[in-house]
């Protein structure tokens, strides 16, 4: 157990002690006890930066379940470290923010911080594990803790709905991921990501490649809210705002991004990977930004905006994978897409985190998040407005903030797809930059809505539940830190590129690097007048501004879109129909009637046995070993058949009981004929007692019942005929194929020698196989005790009497 393992597990360990601390400390907000941990973790992970920058990976391993190849391996490279820094850094800010956001007395703080710490530990485990099973375990823990956090205010209907929805969708993806992990293990025989990637050439030519890839992508797309699995994210906004800021903008939704980036060295060479990842990403980008414009809830805007930005990162990762096809690092113009993806990942975490916190502040200080009621807050909340300004303009991609830089790089990578000349891109390639450009216009519009509708215009205090004022300092510190990062990364992008992007790219595209080589990424504000990207950005700003000004005139199109074709509608109907279908299906065969269950069993019995006889060609009929037919036996057989026909045809029950007795006595006559004296005796006595019992039963029948014949039913007749035929066929074939001699010779020889008895049947019963008899006695004992109990005990009657008293 190294320090690294302890670091990853420390949030989980602290989560155990949180309720205890909560009980002890009533004076200080619980968050203060949690806050040091992410800060320490952040500095700890920060200390790895130097090593990772020099291309050294940090590894550590602990045995867990060695006979299943599962060990808790940690592997930190550029990509893992980037995520670890995001998780611990933003985690610290979110904890600080939540101290001021959540009330100490009104909220159940202990559960909140337990869930949050669970999530933090799980997320660190996901991004730093090298063993896929361990990764999967942490992956499910993120889904689970996210479920708990979304449903934090569990007395609200909407919270529970959102939590359930996100759980269903992300667990569906998680199970797909598990399927992919198992397939990878089948192919390679290892769970280690590094060893699997080392066998990339083998896997890429394997026939299971496509299923594995699709299953992994299902896991990634559901977690990262890609189209059409994005629907859980807007409903997850019912969570407290610190949770939305942490999970649903900066960390958990990027777990899918992490997965795609992590497996790019494995699958990136294939065309399918490029097509699926890029197209799904670009559709998500467009759909998310298009839908964000129509939202009236600030968090709704941010949720769709997150969906859209995640799609953008995803599409860039897909496009960047294409660079593996061009081997020369110096001239490889396609690596820019991967660099842009990593850069935008960082940027998005900064500005989206700050925007969520701003929205939380607005909600906290005014009591509403509805943009139709908000407006003119700039004068009362100047600091919040400034942060929102920085975040929104960075999100819109306006210079000089960091969002502008990554958007430029995004345009560059999308434009270069059109020149790629692989994967049959000739005509369709043009669609990528066009969609990207249109989506960017929508991004611009909703960013402007977010800022201007909230902070400018006329302040109308009557619409607000509280009198608005500036937030407390502690609540402002985290968004201020994030917003200043927006500006710092905007002006000094090389800080990010050399420290973060280059090592992360080295883990996403390791094949491009020779020994000792490094990526050399420089991010420029100014590409020169010749670059087409500049004109695209200008176009976005111009068209975006025009559309924003004329929003009233065209936002009617959202109402035109039919409500019934939204993905939410499909999801809701799907859940509803699956419940209804399962209910109806069960109701259709679980009728409560014992006859139908018996019929199912017998039909199955007949079908499977007859099918087996037919399929195996098992029927045999041989007359060789049969004994001769004698007149006695024929007569007895006829009596037996006549008796059972009488039972079937009898009108009164008395007749059938007597006929049953006749059958029983005939059977005992059969025993006589077939030389079984003990059986004959027993059968005779027992049949007599049984018939007596039947008569007792008959006597106590309800008097009003009128006697009637067994009604003929064709189905029942067919089933019983089938059973009879099956039994006959099996009996015949079993008798005709005797494989070995019976063991009875032994009994015949040894009954007297060993057991000193002359009645073989009795000696077998009490000597050779005495245990059977012992338990048969038990059966009789239990039956008699049961009968006694049934007759004597009247518990239900007693209960009624008690109630009366």
């Amino acid at each position, binding site marked *: 157990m190294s320090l690294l393992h302890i670091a990853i597990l420390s949030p989980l360990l602290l989560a155990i002690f949180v309720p205890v601390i909560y009980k002890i400390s009533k004076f200080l907000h619980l968050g203060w006890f949690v806050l040091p941990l992410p800060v320490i973790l952040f500095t700890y992970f920060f200390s790895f930066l130097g090593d990772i920058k020099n291309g050294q990976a940090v590894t550590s391993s602990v045995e867990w379940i060695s006979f299943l190849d599962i060990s808790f391996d940690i592997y930190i490279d550029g990509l893992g470290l980037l995520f670890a820094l995001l998780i611990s850094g933003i985690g610290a800010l979110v904890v600080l923010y939540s101290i001021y956001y959540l009330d100490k007395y009104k909220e159940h703080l202990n559960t909140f911080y337990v869930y949050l710490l669970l999530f933090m530990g799980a997320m660190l485990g996901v991004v730093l594990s090298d063993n896929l099973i361990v990764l999967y375990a942490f992956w499910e823990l993120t889904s689970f803790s996210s479920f708990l956090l979304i449903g934090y205010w569990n007395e609200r209907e909407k919270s529970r709905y959102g939590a359930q929805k996100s759980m269903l969708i992300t667990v569906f993806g998680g199970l797909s991921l598990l399927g992919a992990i198992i397939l990878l293990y089948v192919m390679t025989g290892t769970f280690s990501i590094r060893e699997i990637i080392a066998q990339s050439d083998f896997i890429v030519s394997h026939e299971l490649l496509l299923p594995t890839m699709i299953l992994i992508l299902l896991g990634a797309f559901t977690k990262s809210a890609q189209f059409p699995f994005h629907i859980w994210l807007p409903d997850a906004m019912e969570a407290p705002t610190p949770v939305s800021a942490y999970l649903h903008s900066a960390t958990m939704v990027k777990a899918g991004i992490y997965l795609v980036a992590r497996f790019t060295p494995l699958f990136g060479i294939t065309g399918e990977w490029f097509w699926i990842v890029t197209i799904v990403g670009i559709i998500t980008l467009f759909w998310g930004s298009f839908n964000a414009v129509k939202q009236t809830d600030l968090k709704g805007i941010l949720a769709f905006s997150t969906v859209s930005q995640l799609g953008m990162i995803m599409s860039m990762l897909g496009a960047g994978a294409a660079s593996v096809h061009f081997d020369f690092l110096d001239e490889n113009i396609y690596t820019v897409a991967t660099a842009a993806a990593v850069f935008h990942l960082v940027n998005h975490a900064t500005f989206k985190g700050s925007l969520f916190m701003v929205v939380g502040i607005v909600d906290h200080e005014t009591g509403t998040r509805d943009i139709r009621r908000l407006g003119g807050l700039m004068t009362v909340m100047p600091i919040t407005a400034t942060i929102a300004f920085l975040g929104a303009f960075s999100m819109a991609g306006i210079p000089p903030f960091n969002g502008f830089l990554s958007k430029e790089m995004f345009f560059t990578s999308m434009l270069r797809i059109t020149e790629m000349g692989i994967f049959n891109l000739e005509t369709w390639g043009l669609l990528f930059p066009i969609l990207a450009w249109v989506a960017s216009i929508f991004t611009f519009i909703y960013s402007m809505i977010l800022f201007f509708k909230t902070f400018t215009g006329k302040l109308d205090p009557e619409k607000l539940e509280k009198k608005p004022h500036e937030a407390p300092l502690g609540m402002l510190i985290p968004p201020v830190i994030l917003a200043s990062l927006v500006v710092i990364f905007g002006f000094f992008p090389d800080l990010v590129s050399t420290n973060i992007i280059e090592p992360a790219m080295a883990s996403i595209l390791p094949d491009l690097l020779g020994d000792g080589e490094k990526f050399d990424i420089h991010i420029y504000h100014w590409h020169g007048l010749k670059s087409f990207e500049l004109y695209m950005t200008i176009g976005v700003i111009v068209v975006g501004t025009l559309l924003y000004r004329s929003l009233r005139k065209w936002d009617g199109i959202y109402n035109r879109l039919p409500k019934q074709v939204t993905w939410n509608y499909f999801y809701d109907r799907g859940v509803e129909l699956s419940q209804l279908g399962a209910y109806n299906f069960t109701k259709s065969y679980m009728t409560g009637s014992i*006859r139908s269950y018996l*019929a199912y069993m017998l039909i199955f019995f007949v079908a499977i046995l007859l099918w087996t006889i037919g399929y195996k060609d098992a029927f045999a009929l041989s007359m060789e*070993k*049969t*004994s001769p*037919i*004698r007149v006695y036996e024929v007569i007895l057989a006829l009596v*037996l*058949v006549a008796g*059972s026909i009488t*039972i*079937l045809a009898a009108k009164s*029950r008395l007749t*059938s*009981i007597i006929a049953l007795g006749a*059958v029983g006595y005939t*059977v005992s006559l059969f*025993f006589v004929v*077939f030389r*079984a004296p003990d*059986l004959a005796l*027993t059968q005779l006595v*027992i049949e007599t*007692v*049984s018939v007596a*019992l039947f008569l*007792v*039963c*008959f006597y*106590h*029948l*309800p008097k009003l*019942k009128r006697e009637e014949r*067994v*009604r003929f039913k064709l189905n*029942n*007749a067919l089933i*019983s005929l089938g059973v*009879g035929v099956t*039994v*006959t066929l099996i*009996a*015949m074939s079993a*008798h005709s194929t005797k494989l070995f001699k*019976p063991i*009875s010779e032994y*009994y*015949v020889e040894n*009954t007297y020698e060993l057991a000193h008895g*002359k*009645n*073989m*049947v009795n000696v077998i*019963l009490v000597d050779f196989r005495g245990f059977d008899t012992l338990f048969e006695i038990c*059966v*009789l004992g239990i*039956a*008699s005790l049961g*009968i006694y109990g049934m*007759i004597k005990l009247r518990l239900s009657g007693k209960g009624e009497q008690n109630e009366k008293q």
Partner: protein
Amino acid sequence: MEILMSIVIGFLFMSAVYLMLSKSLLRIIIGTGLLSHGAHLLILTMGGLKTGAAPLLGEHAEQYTDPLPQALILTAIVISFGVTAFFLVLAYRSYQELGTDNMERLRGNEGHD
């Protein structure tokens, strides 16, 4: 003889199953009685019906019938008797308590599903 017995046993099974699929509880129990007769005869038949003396050493015969299936059947008869007796008293009690022997009416309470 075994072939003929197989057919008779098949007939017993058929009648038993037809009775067990009927509505009346008493007929179902009669069906189980027929079914156990069928099963006992089936065991005996499958053991072989070769003629020989009864399995008593005092007979001093050349050949005896197989004693093992007889022992098995004896056990089975007693067990099926125990179960039948229990079942009959159960039916008797349910007549007393519920006032019906119609299986279609003996269902779980609809309100509880």
